[in-house]
């Protein structure tokens, strides 16, 4: 059973629908005891980092997630959920994240400086850096994923599984130990995206 964390941020319908399509059991929940019973956790999220981090910390769900990760349970963050895995974000001020992966979340425009449109929105090809990582099990070089974001994770190459070219190498997928994340939306990336979710379900 996969726990999809419901902390009042974003639309969980399509994620739940994608897991159903893969015949995977999932529950959308904010109940700590239910989360503890599941064997893996997905942290979704759309919107602003500060608001989402506040909801996650104030609800106590951040502590539940951190405890479960410490126990070895696989965690996957998607889009804003991936950004929340990092130490901090500079989206409208400075905000603390879960700190599970070293690095910070910074504006795409700091690098692009107006040369390309922000948000980075649409389908972009993956450059897989760590094909042996279990999350990349079914992913091929050049698979297209659907992105929608204005900020990106600035982190060490050690933690980067895949990138996409958008003026520079934008962080696409990350991992550190049992913690995984994708900036793109696997649940909105057609069959190639579903393969990422399938790989996560088998970790």
């Amino acid at each position: 059973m996969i726990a999809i964390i419901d902390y009042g941020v974003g639309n969980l319908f399509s994620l739940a629908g994608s897991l159903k399509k893969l015949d995977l059991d999932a529950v959308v929940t904010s109940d700590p005891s239910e989360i503890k019973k599941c064997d893996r956790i997905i942290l979704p999220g759309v919107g602003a980092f500060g608001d989402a981090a506040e909801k996650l910390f104030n609800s106590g769900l951040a502590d539940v997630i951190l405890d479960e990760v410490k126990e070895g349970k696989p965690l996957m963050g998607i889009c804003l959920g991936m950004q929340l895995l990092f130490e901090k974000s500079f989206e409208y001020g400075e905000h603390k994240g879960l700190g599970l992966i070293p690095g910070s979340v910074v504006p795409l425009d700091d690098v692009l400086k107006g040369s390309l449109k922000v948000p980075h929105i649409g389908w972009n090809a993956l450059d897989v850096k760590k094909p042996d990582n279990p999350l990349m099990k079914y992913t091929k070089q050049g698979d297209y994923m659907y992105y929608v974001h204005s900020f990106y994770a600035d982190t060490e190459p050690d933690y980067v599984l895949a990138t996409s070219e958008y003026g520079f190498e934008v962080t696409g997928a990350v991992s550190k130990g049992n913690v995984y994340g994708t900036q793109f939306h696997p649940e909105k990336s057609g069959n190639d995206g579903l393969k990422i979710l399938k790989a996560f379900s088998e970790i």
Partner: protein
Amino acid sequence: MITKRIIPCLDIRHGRVVKGVNFEGVQDVDDPVALAKFYNESGADELVFYDITASVEGRGIFTDVLTAVASQVFIPLTVGGSINTLEDFDRVLKCGADKVSVNSGAIKNQRLINDAAKRYGDQCVVLSMDVKRVNGKFELFTAGGRKATGIDALNWAREGEALGAGEIVLNSIDTDGVKQGFDIEMLSAFAEVVSIPIIASGGAGCMEDFKTLFDTVKGVDAGLAASIFHFKTVNIGELKNYLAQAGINVRR
């Protein structure tokens, strides 16, 4: 690099997919759920679900059809038709929409775009515009192209971007349903005044029309069409192969 997007549009009326020529003389095509599933599997980059009569009949979108469509679609889904309030946004997002398209609702209530962008993010708000040439100017129309507003459409596009719209669907009433190609002149004029992605709509009749669109108007990010895909005049997979051979970056 980011790809150019190909987007089939499902115009829904009474729960069925229809396609009008110049918005009139509508004809029944297919079951929306079956079509959505077909497009999801045939390489479409997004889907637009538009309840064309919702705003005319003054009622909400068929949420049951929408929910059924959303459950078959694992690509981004944009929903429009009679979106007037934040509650309308909430309702269609809960049915599985990823983006919400506003048209006349945003003209009637100028706070709608901004309020929705603040609550759901810019990426969620798509400003849909029906535009027609009137006395040498681009004028904004509503009610499926039936009602003139007197508003300068270029100004409205600029304003929409400033209010927080994340994308613009620009539908040319002059070329819609005529199948003689996209309205290159109109699209070029809009690409000059906004920097958010523009989705071109109205006029696609063959594969070459998409090539001309992407080659000519660099500011256009996507091409939207309905009947040529529904009637299988153009197959999306073949269209993408054709565009890739012409040097246009597409997802295959």
